[in-house]
């Protein structure tokens, strides 16, 4: 079986050569060269591979390509750039909110999904939204502060 699945990734449409049974994470990293989504467990249990599918955070490591055919995928590369960072990216830098940073791509995706829903998340809501993301380095509290900062930025610029 050959490819041909169509996918919109970070606003660009692609016709994917990988077979429909291919794993989305593998397609993103190895076919499209988008390396920000990371392999952590391959079992949907750590969140390192999270991407947005039509705005919802999804573990790309256990998502078959066919199941996202025709949908819009956003990876960290599509969230923002150094010149035009997403508020969560700017806030993570401002709060110096990581150690190794291996977990941080998946965390940004979860946070971006939350912030798209509400710019007034409670601390409990933030912890809940990030609960699928594991961090071994103990950067959690700084990350929470960064999400709060990003939310405040978004409120301020909407006002």
């Amino acid at each position: 079986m050959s490819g041909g699945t169509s996918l919109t990734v970070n606003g660009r449409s692609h016709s994917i050569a990988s077979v429909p049974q291919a794993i989305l994470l593998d397609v993103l990293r190895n076919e499209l060269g988008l390396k920000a989504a990371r392999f952590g467990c391959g079992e949907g249990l750590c969140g390192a591979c999270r991407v947005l599918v039509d705005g919802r955070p999804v573990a790309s490591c256990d998502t078959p390509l066919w199941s996202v055919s025709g949908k819009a995928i956003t990876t960290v590369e599509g969230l923002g750039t150094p010149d035009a960072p997403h508020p969560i990216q700017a806030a993570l830098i401002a709060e110096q909110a990581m150690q190794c940073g291996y977990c941080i791509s998946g965390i940004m995706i979860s946070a971006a999904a939350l912030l798209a829903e509400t710019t007034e998340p409670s601390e409990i809501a933030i912890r809940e939204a990030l609960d699928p993301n594991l961090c071994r380095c103990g950067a959690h509290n700084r990350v929470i502060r960064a999400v709060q900062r990003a939310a405040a930025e978004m409120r301020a610029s909407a006002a």
Partner: protein
Amino acid sequence: MNPAATNPAAAPALPAGLRATPRLDRWLAISAEGHVTLSPGKVEIGQGILTALAQICADELDIALERVRLLPAATASSPNEGVTSGSLSVSECGLSVRQVAAQVRGLFLAEAARQLSVATEALSVEDGVISGPGNLSTSYWELADRVSLAFDADAAVRPKPPSRRTLAGRSAPRIDIPGKVFGTRPFIHDIVLPDMLHGRVLRPPRPGATLSALDETQLSEIGGLVTLVRDGSFLGVVCRTEAKADAALGRLASAASWTGGFDLPDAQNMPSWLKSQPVEASVVDLRGEGPGPSAPRRLVRHYLKPYLAHASIGPSCAIASWQEDQQGETLHVFSHSQGVFNLRADLALVFGLPENAITVTHVEGAGCYGHNGADDAVLDAALLARAVPGRPVRLRWSRADELVRSPFGAAMAIEIAADLSEDGAITGWRHEIWSNGYVARPGRADSPALLASFDLEQPFPLYISQDPSLATGGGAQRNAVPLYDFPSWRIAKNRLLTMPLRTSSMRALGAFGNVFAIESMMDEIAEELGEDPLAFRLRHLSDERARAVLERATAMADWGNASVPDERGRGIAFARYKNTSAYCAIVAEIDLSAQPRATQLWIAVDVGEAINPDGVINQIEGGAIQAVSWTLKEEVTFTRADVTSGSWESYPILRFSEVPAVSVEIISRPELPPLGAGEAAQGPTAAALANAVHAALGVRVRQMPITRDRIIAAMEL
């Protein structure tokens, strides 16, 4: 001013790294384009070392931080600074960089003085521009081609006094963070080389098992398979893509049959298992004659720490390429190893190659807290690459292998006996440990310590983990000697000579278990005597810096006055890491209404000079949160045949919803040498939580992890 005159602690000797690699140009280069390139032997493991080194260098040279470029540690170019571990990166490497930069500054000023015909004393430097009286000026960049750095480091050169540093001591933003936020800074898993192939390795299903048969018919029609590699019980595949390699690995698993394997420890009865193994017994330390044979009152308590997994979020990964040409065979690898030179030494042993035929270059991996699978993955990749000479092979472990086949932090049984006089003074203290050693790192012996080397057709003997001497930090015995003013003690250790579960360095080594035991015991004695745990500790502690962190942490938490909600409790604990490094005191609050959950930690630390205070806070907080996870949740599980904690479901770690609030204060001592912060909070966190459980429920849990079941079991005792 001679800083040595005001700082008697700074002896005029070169730091160890400079004694090993004295040439200045091995450490630092200045370019005409306006950059300073540093080549440290230590590696970034998420601890912010690169930023701290850049700060030190920029400070000493009087240049902007942005001008400093850092090269990755590589056997081909870097000074050999051993392993990045034991919280020594800043104290060892930082002092070397400071010394080198100070001397380089002097060489440039001398040249500038010659060029400008003025005395060096008349010159000043601002962002690399060297100015003299009137309009006289030049710069490092203009002089770069004229000043030779082909000199050895000179201990007589004195770096700036602390008061004249402007960057060190300030919280500089980490230089690696923007690239990680925008997904542009590669981890090793992201590196693609021309013609690269992908490897996977099938580990024996149980430690020590050997391959008895391989049904090759099942492998015949694997698409994309470039080659199968079999060497004794080492089995791996090389494929054109990662997806094919994963698929091939699945086929390989069903085609392989195994036999034998080690009997694993008795999980239900760890203390007796540990105490029934053949051991090397030694006395770690003796104060006075040691405790006498009898005492009016003697308290004896037994504590247990389980095997712990590193549980890096990113599985171990390596890239290797094997070359064969007229000059012979060479091996080039990229690795997230903590010690590129030590790894090279072990690779040389396995392949029988001279060390200069091998290069190891560091590339960042996921956060690393000791000797995980990073080095093992390199041997795996190299064995595969040897089968496809000329083509690089990138190899990645599975999540299960990362959790099960990386070395563990050793399980420890600890027995403490305290002798009390009639009037409640501690007159004698005994501390005895039963544990595997804590160090089985590569490059330490004449036999390799890399996992696959034990499985080859010509196998190397299983490397049994050792403990360094206490003078070099110790292993299982790290922090076993109390810092309290007891009049006599006997500290003893039994290092296991069997090792069915492979153990090696993990953050804080034995300090995690020993401080848990000592600081739990201190509370148990205080309770026995009806004393406040803080007052009781202070009564036995004359070290001023120790008292200061305890007093600060308890003040932060309003110890003794704060009202603690129902079903919660607070505990304190203290340690000076390794008894020679950072001081750390912690107050922990725990909520026991459901599964035990840490709600808050108040932490005071003294790390001597804090080069990057925000970096220190980040390290301490990260370490404490990881220690909460170890203490309340983590335990490697196993049957007599195999380890069963191979996924995040069977080896859960602390999640966002479970993380306590953490406040950290640094007691600043810019005049004292910098001490590493990475591991100081581990032991105190564990004991403070155990003491908090006792404060809430009156129940003493002496076995980690402190789960609801363990608390209930302790109640029933």
